[in-house]
């Protein structure tokens, strides 16, 4: 799945074309006489067929061909775009998608069914029109049966039969069957002589003379027959009968193999051939299977339970138990950890699948807005949990829309600012520890600090003249109802979106950071956990309750100097190497009455570039844990994002870092003021 793989590029292109096709079909359904969607649909089909056959998606190409013919006739007015026709076309579109994405899973019978309905609706003329089309577009591809037996001494004269076969394969799709009937018993076998004959079913656009040219140097001594199988792909099923007859006649004493080879090599007979060419390519794909996502979720759940049960077991046998039981427990630990890692690995998919969708978005939006924009990407191979990828779609759409609409200037403004007229949006993803950083960067005008400030003051989000760092200022754009756009466009600017983005990313336990330079562009970086199901946490104790702080947010742990309290009774600031960090006493926040430990610890956590200290009674250590989401009843509990079950069966709540940091920051000015 490299980015440069032409097959992959075609898949992406086809996905867009199919989306275009679907939209056009729906439009056509509303308005059957509308010319434009009809043309769009035809163009999409035409491109899928043309590029498909170039990049080895013959199955999809030949299937698409029939639909394309029908649409061509609609364009000529020979057929009407009836609702039934559109229904068939939509079904066909779905089938094409399968043929391209995963030919191995394509149901040939379903494809045949669709084609049969197509014929029924369009009248027999559709399919009879095919051969002509095939003739034009498939460059007169024809199938040949090439049978050759080289002179026995050919090896001694320096000819390599493999190279001949390779050369035939270069001409087109070739099914090669070795006829080993001439191979003598071992005791009589002369290894320097060539005993094998070959039967090759070749489908090629080249003429017969090109096939003969392959044998140019050996043709005098070679028994060579080249017979046409089907001059062009005539659609009639009767073709197969003579083909089979031809294959089984002649001197081949092992007729079974060439017999098998024949139907596979017929490229464009409408029905069976679908499965034929696909079969060959499906070989590598048989190594993967498709599984409903829910089953993976269930599996993850079960593994999570197993990890928890194991932790309990481990705690139960902590001391003084039989060594044998201990060793088995350790064994189970290793296995369950392995199982957990594998299960998590199964759920990982490359972000490419997500990024790929934005090509269409950027193209459409740039057209709509009349801006010339190019979308580039890097790190598409970075893997992320499938669920995460699904949920990231909407936030990224919002961000990209904003970049296109507000960030990137019209070409004239860009040129005036000394920038190239074409705007640039870059998506990138990379690993950073246990997290994935996803960046959306544009080279537009950047965020307007003054306007954000003015708007925030107008909405009473900040006191007039408040001193804010750039990062703090930029975070304001995530406030609900906040939009600085002067004019609303259909694309963005309704003030919804960025707060939804923030909420979604928070919900994924992600972070979002904005940096921007005036005139230089904006960069939004999302920090995301690899998976939603497992969290690396720091287990702490406050009073008698235990809590998990996500480890990614933890910067350091320090001891709370006892004199801090006496010296600054009302000022909860801690001097961490010269920087003042506000801290929260979780005891107070959680209303704990249990007497505090003598030495209180402070866990310094960060979110964005804000830091907050959390005062806890004890730091218990790091803890990898399976996340249980909160019940609906508790879904809106502030400061906690989930819960986990500890080894002894008790529940620990997982802190919501973003909310707690925000709470700590808000609390601070208030206290200072009082």
């Amino acid at each position, binding site marked *: 799945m490299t980015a440069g793989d032409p097959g992959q590029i075609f898949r992406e292109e086809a996905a867009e074309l199919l989306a275009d096709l679907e939209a056009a079909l729906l439009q056509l359904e509303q308005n059957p006489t509308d010319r434009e969607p009809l043309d769009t649909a035809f163009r999409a089909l035409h491109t899928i067929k043309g590029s498909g056959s170039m990049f080895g998606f013959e199955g999809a190409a030949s299937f698409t061909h029939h639909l394309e013919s029908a649409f061509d006739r609609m364009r000529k007015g020979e057929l009407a775009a009836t609702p039934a026709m559109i229904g068939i076309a939509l079904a066909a579109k779905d089938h094409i998608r399968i043929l391209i994405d995963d030919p191995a899973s394509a149901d040939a019978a379903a494809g045949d069914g669709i084609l049969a309905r197509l014929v029924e609706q369009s009248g027999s003329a559709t399919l009879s029109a095919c051969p002509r089309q095939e003739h034009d577009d498939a460059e007169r591809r024809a199938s040949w049966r090439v049978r050759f037996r080289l002179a026995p001494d050919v*090896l*001694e*004269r*320096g*000819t*390599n039969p493999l*190279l001949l076969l*390779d*050369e035939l394969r270069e001409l087109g799709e070739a099914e090669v069957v070795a006829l080993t009937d001439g191979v003598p018993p071992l005791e009589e076998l002369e290894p*320097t002589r060539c005993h094998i004959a070959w039967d090759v079913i070749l489908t090629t656009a080249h003429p017969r003379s090109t096939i003969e040219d392959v044998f*140019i*140097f050996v043709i*005098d001594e070679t028994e060579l027959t080249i017979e046409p199988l089907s001059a062009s792909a005539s659609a009639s099923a009767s073709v197969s009968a003579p083909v089979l007859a031809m294959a089984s006649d002649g001197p081949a004493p092992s007729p079974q193999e060439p017999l098998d080879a024949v139907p596979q090599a017929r490229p464009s007979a409408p029905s069976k051939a679908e499965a034929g060419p696909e079969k060959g390519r499906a070989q590598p794909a048989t190594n993967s299977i498709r599984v409903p996502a829910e089953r993976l979720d269930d599996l993850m759940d079960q593994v999570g339970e197993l990890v928890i049960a194991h932790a309990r077991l481990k705690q139960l046998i902590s001391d003084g138990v039989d060594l044998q039981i201990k060793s088995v427990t350790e064994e189970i630990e290793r296995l369950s950890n392995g199982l957990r890692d594998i299960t998590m690995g199964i759920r990982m998919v490359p972000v490419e699948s997500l990024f790929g969708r934005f090509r269409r978005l950027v193209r459409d939006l740039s057209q709509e807005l009349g801006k010339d924009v190019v979308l580039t990407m890097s790190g598409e191979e970075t893997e992320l949990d499938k669920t995460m990828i699904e949920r990231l779609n909407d936030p990224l759409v919002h961000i990209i829309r904003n970049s296109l609409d507000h960030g990137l200037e019209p070409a004239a403004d860009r040129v005036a600012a000394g920038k190239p007229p074409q705007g640039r949006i870059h998506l990138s993803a990379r690993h950073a520890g246990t997290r994935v950083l996803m960046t959306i960067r544009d080279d537009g005008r950047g965020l307007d600090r003054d306007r954000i400030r003015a708007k925030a003051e107008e909405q009473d989000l900040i006191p007039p003249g408040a001193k804010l760092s750039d990062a703090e200022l930029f975070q304001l754009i995530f406030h609900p109802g906040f939009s600085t756009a002067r004019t609303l466009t259909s694309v963005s600017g309704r003030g919804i979106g960025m707060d939804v983005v923030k909420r979604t990313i928070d919900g994924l336990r992600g972070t979002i950071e904005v940096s921007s330079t005036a005139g230089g562009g904006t960069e939004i970086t999302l920090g995301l956990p690899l998976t939603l199901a497992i969290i690396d946490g720091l287990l702490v104790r406050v009073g008698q309750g235990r809590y998990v702080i996500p480890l990614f947010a933890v910067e350091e742990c320090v001891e709370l100097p006892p004199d801090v309290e006496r010296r600054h009774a009302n000022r909860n600031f801690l001097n961490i190497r010269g920087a003042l960090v506000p801290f929260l006493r979780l005891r107070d926040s959680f209303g704990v009455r249990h007497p505090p430990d003598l030495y209180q610890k402070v866990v310094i956590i960060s979110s964005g570039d804000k830091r907050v200290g959390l005062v806890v009674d004890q730091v218990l250590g790091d803890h990898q844990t399976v996340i249980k989401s909160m019940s609906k009843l508790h879904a809106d509990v502030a400061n906690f994002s989930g819960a986990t079950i500890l080894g002894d069966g008790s529940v620990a709540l997982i802190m919501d870092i973003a909310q707690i940091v925000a709470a700590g920051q808000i609390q601070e000015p208030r206290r200072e003021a009082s």
Partner: protein
Amino acid sequence: MTKSILAVDDSASMRQMVKLTLSSAGYQVVEAADGREALTKAKSGTFHLVLTDLNMPNMDGLALIRELRALPAYRGVPIVFLTTESDTGKKAEAKTAGATAWIVKPFQQDQLLGVVRKIVGA
């Protein structure tokens, strides 16, 4: 793996053209000015292909082909010879002697490359 080719021709310009064409396509080319020199060089090294002219002083192409085929190491090595359109008799002789393929003079560089690729692979 880089394929090595022994190019045999008494014409220096011809050898240079062959060498230039083949080495720019990634082959390693060793030159020999006649059949005798070629045979010596063939015995001292291994080649994946021998490309030889037929009319040469000292030892001609036909003799070279027969000598090479007599060597165990060169029984299966492809030998391509250069010939002219009119020389059908020589062509048949060379084939009988054990040549693999031929190139008709005059030829274009890409024709040469095409034949070499066809015979030994890229």
